[in-house]
């Protein structure tokens, strides 16, 4: 079992650009959540996808959007990048019956 996999692992973008991050959940998991983690802080919830729909959303602007595909994999899109978007972006998956979340290794996004 590969667990949760994210790509890419590192990314450098210029302010104003757009970025897409990808996540494949752990086998058997159908719920995917995305988190943003700034240095020295805990992960902050961005949104959660289940059955290809956004089910819950944290306090993030509309520049952050996502998608879930029929195979449960997910994408996080961020438009009009700001310097403050530089962070570690984490994807977590879980099954419907479980509260335990399995995290990927994250994508380190640097906006310059």
């Amino acid at each position, binding site marked *: 079992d590969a667990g*949760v996999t994210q790509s890419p692992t590192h990314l450098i973008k210029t302010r104003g650009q757009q970025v897409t991050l990808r996540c494949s959940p752990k086998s058997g998991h159908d*719920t995917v*959540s995305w*988190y943003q983690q700034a240095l*020295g*802080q*805990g*992960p*902050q*919830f961005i949104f*959660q996808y*289940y059955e290809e729909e956004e*089910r*819950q959303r*944290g306090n993030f602007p509309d520049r952050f959007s996502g998608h879930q595909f029929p195979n449960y994999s997910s994408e996080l899109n961020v438009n009009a990048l700001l310097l403050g978007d530089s962070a*570690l972006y*984490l994807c*977590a998956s879980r099954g419907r019956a479980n*509260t*335990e*979340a*399995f*995290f*990927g*290794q*994250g994508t*380190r996004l640097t906006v310059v």
Partner: protein
Amino acid sequence: SQKIEQNSEALNIQEGKTATLTCNYTNYSPAYLQWYRQDPGRGPVFLLLIRENEKEKRKERLKVTFDTTLKQSLFHITASQPADSATYLCAPLAGSARQLTFGSGTQLTVLP
């Protein structure tokens, strides 16, 4: 608003001693509380879940307590080892909530 506070300072202890980490929450009535370990540049890894009707939970050298009156959870690592050095995150979870809300974490260093 909901607030989660963990040990504000980094915690340094000597190998072999017991490390005790604190998680306090306000404006919350969590049904569960989870603890995660996070190594630098990696995603969090689930350690333990304790339910509101459980006072204490153990797993190997780990022990978690959950006091809903004090709105506090304590996380203990007995016979600590340098390999236990990491950041530890708590995440109280309401019964109906689907996303995790994390504290800022406590950085633990076990000195040889």
